């Protein structure tokens, strides 16, 4: 071994490779067998070394900061349940030279085309089965073989539109396909985020090296989806299983990045054989569905009946050719592990050519010769379930390394294979190549697998020039799964010539079209309204609590009438003032976070961060803050953060329909809260000091002082907080805003007709505008709170149904 020789040749102050010890017999991506950096890595390593350990640490921290700021997370499932985890970025990208990449691309395009032909045959004429190339029993047993779509030709003409392949480099230096992703491949959005984060850290190096850009890939695929939709005159939508899915972040991210609607199953309905999205403007056709949920869950009527996330009737709409699914339902069949055993023959049969990129050698034990081979070579094999669609290295429960079996297990496994061969595949155990990670100031080798994405365009398959590498946490090659502590690294495809700089923005020569307005899904509108309500409700509660704790801190008697009155007032709303930060208040804010979490695609990362920060603060306060003075200060902090969040929304959100629902939610809630609190604090029997407290809660102390040269009396307080159209805290002000925003909502019951909500708010607004302070008795105020609340029901009926 001549490794480490370069140390002497290169006399740098900080030699990153000093501790770099590739494993014997394993290819390393960065250094060759003699320990010298490969050409594509040379400049890169030198640039890192020039930066030195301190700067590097700063740079990498910058990447992590970006990911935290952008709120990139994924979900892990462990014994403690599902949790959001920060995205584990391995800061050093995997570098691949673009000629080698061209060979990988050609192999993967060939594979995607072969898969398309294979899947079309399995769901169509079945010649591969007839000729004895594919065993019918294997297909019939697969849960991914979906009988309700057998015989259906996809409306788009193709089954596959977006695929991912998992690659590893073997000891002979060749790339192997470890797994195929044809169902609903995830990670393309994370690849983009990896790129953004990595270039935050290494922008200068990235700028100098000729690294292929990723944006063009996404632009071409978006155009392809829009092209498909244009033909049939419907919309494109991304279908997600929802916020609890492990990669929901990515679904929302891609939707935002590409400007495509993000929908859940319940947003969709089938009507007259067409797939429709429920929007605030009524039902709108969807003709291209980029699904991120597994096909089996797509329609409880014809697929898994227990699915809560599907759309009844979707399969029928697909059979009728009304919608193209990306990928077609049933495409997941190609992920079946045993399928790899048949690919070489299928390729010969269908295309009369060999595979440019082979799969890991696979034997299906349902064939006698294969079974005998597997049993004879058990020590070199990974044995797993034939129908599994999981990657071998992600599936340690049911997939076993032959050489790692103890005697009893071994005998048992052999017996099972002999009894039910068709249930098992043996795959050659692969050793992955290693790539460097930065650990404590040095580079160290770690096993890596590469995920590459392909998208179908009108011109054929296009390959994302890059992707995402999964890098092991330790030298154990099974430890690269993200669920088990693996990391993700960016992949740089490096050219020796300048590359095209692409962005997602339209080019000079592109024609541009405005997206049709008014396609806000009803569920999103409902969540936006509730987000507005919860935020406002939190604010109103915090204002009352602050006024309470200020007085509590100064009061000699905690049972003085005003304090007792507030206690009694808040109690039915689940707010217990004995606790400085009442669980009821935390619950309201958690609900705001939940509502926002349902619509992350419509939400700026800044807004989301502000909300998460707010939530973190209040949960922290809950454990530390004491009633009285301490609580007063805490409430002030919370108010300031709430104001920051509201300001972000108010200043930065485009005034599209979604914003209107958010605004309506806020105004509704504020109207209700003010009316309710006024009814309490201005009632005849209200305790001393109630009116001053009301002004404080209504943030109108100074205004009152300026407007009225008298002490606060019932009339002046009502005048200012109910009837003053210029006071942004008055009820009339809320009603005016509601009237204006409701009038701008999509028409209901025909253009030019007033919606029920519009009629109600007009009546209410007029009735209040002509009132005198003396009319606004406590019971009248309580009624008003209910009437404003009733508006929500009218809106819900018209828009959220």
């Amino acid at each position, binding site marked *: 071994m001549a490794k480490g020789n370069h140390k002497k040749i290169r006399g740098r102050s900080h030699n990153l490779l000093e501790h770099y010890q590739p494993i014997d017999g394993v290819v390393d991506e960065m250094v060759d067998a003699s320990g010298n950096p490969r050409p594509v890595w040379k400049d890169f390593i030198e640039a890192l070394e020039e930066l030195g350990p301190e700067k590097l640490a700063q740079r990498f921290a910058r990447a992590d900061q970006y990911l935290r700021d952008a709120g990139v997370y994924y979900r892990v499932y462990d014994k403690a349940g599902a949790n959001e985890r920060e995205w584990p970025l391995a800061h050093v990208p995997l570098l691949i030279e673009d000629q080698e990449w061209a060979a990988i691309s050609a192999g993967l395009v060939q594979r995607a085309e072969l898969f398309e032909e294979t899947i079309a045959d*399995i769901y169509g004429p*079945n010649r591969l089965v007839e000729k004895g190339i594919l065993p019918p*029993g294997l*297909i019939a047993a697969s849960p991914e073989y979906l009988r309700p779509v057998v015989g259906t030709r996809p409306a788009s003409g193709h089954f596959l539109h977006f695929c991912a392949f998992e690659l590893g480099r073997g000891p002979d230096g060749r790339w192997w396909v470890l797994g195929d992703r044809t169902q609903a491949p995830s990670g393309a959005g994370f690849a983009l985020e990896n790129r953004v984060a990595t270039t935050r850290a290494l922008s200068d190096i990235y700028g100098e090296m000729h690294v292929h850009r990723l944006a063009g890939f996404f632009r071409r695929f978006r155009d392809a989806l829009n092209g498909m939709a244009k033909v049939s005159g419907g919309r494109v939508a991304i279908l997600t299983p929802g916020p609890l899915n492990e990669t929901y972040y990515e679904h929302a991210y891609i939707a935002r990045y590409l400007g495509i609607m993000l929908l859940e199953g319940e947003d969709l309905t089938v009507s007259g054989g067409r797939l429709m999205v429920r929007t605030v403007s009524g039902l709108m056709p969807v003709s291209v569905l980029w699904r991120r949920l597994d096909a089996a869950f797509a329609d409880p*009527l014809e697929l898994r009946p227990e699915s809560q996330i599907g759309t009844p009737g979707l399969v029928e709409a697909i059979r009728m050719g009304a919608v193209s699914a990306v990928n077609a339902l049933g495409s997941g069949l190609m992920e079946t592990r045993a399928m790899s055993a048949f690919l070489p023959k299928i390729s010969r049969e269908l295309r009369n050519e060999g595979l440019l990129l082979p799969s890991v050698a696979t034997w299906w034990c349902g064939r006698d010769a294969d079974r005998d081979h597997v049993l004879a070579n058990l020590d070199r094999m990974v044995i797993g379930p034939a129908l599994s669609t999981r990657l071998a290295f992600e599936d340690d429960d049911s997939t076993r390394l032959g050489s790692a079996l103890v005697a009893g297990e071994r005998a048992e496994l052999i017996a099972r294979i002999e009894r039910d061969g068709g249930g098992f595949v043996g795959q050659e155990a692969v050793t992955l190549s290693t790539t460097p990670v930065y650990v404590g100031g040095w580079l160290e080798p770690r096993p890596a697998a590469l995920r590459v994405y392909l998208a179908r365009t009108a011109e054929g398959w296009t390959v994302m020039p890059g992707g995402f590498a999964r890098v092991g946490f330790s030298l154990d090659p099974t430890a690269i799964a993200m669920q088990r502590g693996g990391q993700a690294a960016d992949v740089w495809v490096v050219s020796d010539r300048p590359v095209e700089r692409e962005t997602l923005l339209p080019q000079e020569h592109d024609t541009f079209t405005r997206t049709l307005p008014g396609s806000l899904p009803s569920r999103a509108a409902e969540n936006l309204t509730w987000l507005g309500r919860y935020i406002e409700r939190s604010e109103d509660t915090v204002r009352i609590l602050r006024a309470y704790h200020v007085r509590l801190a100064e009061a000699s008697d905690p049972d003085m009438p005003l304090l007792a009155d507030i206690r009694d007032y808040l109690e039915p709303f689940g707010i217990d003032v004995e606790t400085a930060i009442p669980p009821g208040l935390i619950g309201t804010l958690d609900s705001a976070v939940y509502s926002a979490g349902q619509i992350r695609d419509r939400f700026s990362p800044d807004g989301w961060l502000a909300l998460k920060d707010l939530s973190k603060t209040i949960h922290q306060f809950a454990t530390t803050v004491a009633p009285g003075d301490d609580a007063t200060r805490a409430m002030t902090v919370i108010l300031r953060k709430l104001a920051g969040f509201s300001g972000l929304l108010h200043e930065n959100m485009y005034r599209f329909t979604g914003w209107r629902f958010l605004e309506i939610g806020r105004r509704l809630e504020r109207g209700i809260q003010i009316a309710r609190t006024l009814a309490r604090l201005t009632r005849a029997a209200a305790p001393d000091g109630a009116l001053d407290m009301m002004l404080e809660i209504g943030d109108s102390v100074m205004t009152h002082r300026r407007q009225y040269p008298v002490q606060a009396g019932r009339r002046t307080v009502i005048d200012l907080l109910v009837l003053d159209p210029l006071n942004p805290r008055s009820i009339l002000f809320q009603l005016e805003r509601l009237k204006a925003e409701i009038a701008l909502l999509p028409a209901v019951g025909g253009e030019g007709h007033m919606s029920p909500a519009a009629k109600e708010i007009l009546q209410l607004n007029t009735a209040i505008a002509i009132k005198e302070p003396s009319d606004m008795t406590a019971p009248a105020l309580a009624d008003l709170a209910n009437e404003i609340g009733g508006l929500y029901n009218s809106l819900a009926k018209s828009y959220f149904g």
Partner: protein
Amino acid sequence: MLYDIRLKLRYDYDAAAGGGRHQVRVLPPTVSGVQRVIAASLSFAPAPSERSDFSDFFGNNVTSIAFRDVHDALDIRMSARVAVSRPEPGLDVSPDIRRLREELDAVRSLSPDTPHHFLAASDHAGIDAAITAYARSSAGNSAVSTAMDLCNRIYRDFTYDGEATTVQTRASDAFDLKRGVCQDFSHIMIAGLRGLGVPAGYVSGFLRTIPPRGKPRLEGADAMHAWVKVWCGRDTGWQEFDPTNGMRASNDHITVGHGRDYSDVAPIVGVLKTTGGQVGEQAVDVIPVVLEKA
């Protein structure tokens, strides 16, 4: 035999259901060599806002209906005239299980009636070690004798009990209970045969009940029924057995659907947007028709 069949299904909802989409599988099909449908009709009350009829993968008649308006009950009525004429079982020339396996491997097709669809575990009829062990003592010299023996043993060893199980019950649970209804017995027999490597499927339909001597036929007293079809090799093909009655399917068995298990042929599936529960009723009449000689 010629039958007039009437089926009435009724669902009452606690709370009015807004919208809803269902698939209904109750119309008997013509099955070559077994039965011929002379006339059939299916109606719904209230009338659905959408309706379409199609054949599913296994060739079952499916009616897909959707309701836009709120309704608090659904009434389904099917009537059909069906002629059933099954061939007498011939001499048993079916292979034993080992040879059956070879004949199975030689079937290079995925068309809906090929045995391949009926060998793997399915939701309700999963392959289960205990059921397979139970079935193994029926394994005999031929597929037909194996199936017949298993059918008879289930008939003897299990207790008919309408309260013990539900439509959701899986074969393994019913097997542990040693009781159930036609659906459970069929699932157990299917699971057992699959465990032995014999393809087996689920048949749903109607059974004519013969009233006790001297008693009149009770209106609506017949019931939907289920039994088992077994692939008995290349030459013998599919044979049907009724483990609830310990017999082969006869001319009193009228077929409605075929599938891997109950979930492929459930008479109604669908999702309701309702907050309350729902109650179902069914009434079946299977009336033999005697054609007057002119």
